[in-house]
């Protein structure tokens, strides 16, 4: 009797040890790459491969911003924030209508919104490029903003519809009886209540556009208009990679997304797989 108990305890111990080891392997896999980039961004890498003196330095960041990285950061902020605000405004009204009214074409809008989330943008690059080339929107931030607005709108509508269904319709009706217009209802009553939902949708939209690469690559060639993802790849020269600058630039590109992601994570998961887990 004693013996089986001690072998059981041993088996348990081995199993728990194995679980911990597996956890550690996952931890290294998940965190290792980010850790090395972070570490590398503070090391002196650019001189030569042997001369890594092991000291910490801010030199990578200093030379990164001296070489004009700042302009990419500003461009990214301008484009992504404008697109996010536009998309959220458009989505708010659309989501409101979808959740409150039945109208012709409602099914089409639903289908388009679900489809839009998975739309292969690689296919749209050619036609959009031609239209933009003919209308002078190549190398224009307005063009990129329009694309990103269109790119993030389906998902922001989707998130907001979910949020709006939790707000009782009796609220709007009471205001309508008091003589408020629908527009006032949305801006004065609905918006304050669904502010958290707006923030979540906006954060998501911002993150989406912040890391977008393909459209920016096709539409922007002027260095002064480039966004962070494009700008980062400037430092991969034809012959030699300026690793110090690339690492520092990567850290600058990732810190905002990490900070924004933190509060958003749970919401995103429940939104994405809601249909499957209900």
């Amino acid at each position, binding site marked *: 009797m004693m013996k089986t108990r001690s072998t059981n305890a041993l088996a348990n111990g081995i199993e728990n040890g194995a679980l911990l080891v597996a956890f550690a392997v996952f931890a290294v896999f998940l965190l290792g790459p980010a850790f090395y980039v972070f570490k590398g961004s503070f090391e002196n890498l650019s001189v030569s491969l042997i001369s890594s003196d092991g000291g910490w330095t801010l030199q990578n960041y200093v030379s990164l911003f001296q070489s004009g990285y700042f302009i990419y950061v500003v461009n990214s902020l301008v484009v992504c924030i404008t697109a996010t605000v536009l998309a959220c405004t458009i989505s708010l009204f659309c989501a409101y209508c979808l959740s409150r009214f039945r109208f012709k074409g409602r099914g089409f809008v639903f289908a388009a919104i679900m489809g839009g989330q998975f739309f292969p943008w690689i296919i749209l690059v050619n036609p959009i490029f031609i239209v933009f080339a003919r209308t002078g929107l190549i190398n224009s931030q307005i063009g990129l903003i329009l694309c990103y607005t269109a790119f993030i709108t389906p998902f922001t509508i989707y998130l907001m519809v979910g949020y709006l269904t939790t707000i009782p319709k009796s609220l709007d009706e009471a205001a309508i009886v008091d003589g408020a217009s629908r527009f006032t209802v949305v801006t004065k009553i609905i918006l304050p209540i669904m502010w958290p939902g707006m923030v979540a949708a906006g954060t998501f939209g911002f993150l989406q556009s912040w890391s977008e690469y393909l459209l920016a690559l096709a539409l922007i060639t002027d260095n002064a208009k480039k966004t962070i993802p494009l700008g*980062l790849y400037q430092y991969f020269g034809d012959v030699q990679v300026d690793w110090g600058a690339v690492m520092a630039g990567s850290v600058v590109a990732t810190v905002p997304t990490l900070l924004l992601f933190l509060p958003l994570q749970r919401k995103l998961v429940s939104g994405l797989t*809601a249909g499957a887990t209900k």
Partner: protein
Amino acid sequence: MTLSPKMRTRMTVFWMLLPTFLILIGFYLFPTLYNLELSFSDITLLKLKKGGDFVGTTNYTEFLTSSSFRDIAINTVFWLTAISVSVRIVLGLLFALLLNSKFLKSMRLTTIARLMLLVPWATPPVVAVIAWRWLFDPTYGPINSWLISSGLISDPIAFTANLATVWPAIITIIVWNTTPLIGVSLLAALQTIPEDLNEAAAIDGANRWQQFRFITLPYLMPTISVLTLMSVIWTFNNFVYVWLTTGAGPGTFTNVLATEVYMKAFIDLRIGYSAAIGVSMAVVMAFFGAMYFRYFGLTEMQDKVG
């Protein structure tokens, strides 16, 4: 002029929906149809002003019979999509099961694990590629220096330039960047399984594998299928990982449909031909999209709002 309340509501709905309709038409519907038109023409970037001539299905037959078609199709379907999606589903499932195990839960590691998952998840794909290119780098990269110092290899391996390692390298990057979503979603689904189901099964003599096979897995299956389908759709037409890791190289060894569309349009300047490849991709995607709608998509969103 005064409008009846019903008309007024109609007008309001119209104005509120107008911007969305403009976006859907201007950036989704019109470009898709225009792309279809382009695919039947010989338009190039050089004669953009003049436009192209109608050439029928020449672009399609040229692409489908071209010598590179087979390789591109295999790369896209097998390596980029099938392998990378399977690996991330399996890894995500393993990680979720691990975090849901009694022992790790009792160690209170779940919150830390969520934070750990956040790091690759929040990393923009561009930066994910950079991070791994650094790890894989033959002269500076930590992986090569470990392998050399541990005596496993004597010369550094250029992981992203070597034919034997380039696909596994690309897949590693995709998996690193996209597995967290799978892991977190599956963990959330695992946590909805009632505890007493497994206990009852254990009392009836089911071993752990049987519990997993006949309780956990069936419970997770809807989530696994929606995640698989979503991942397939996202990955099949993904451009950024392959392009930034290898530029479709060495040579055209890792060329996939998305990179072929880009290269044909913006390097060879053959917009029409590139559009035909895009339309071919869209047809495949439409099939998966229809599956998604059929099983999960439309019904779910409409159920929610009624």
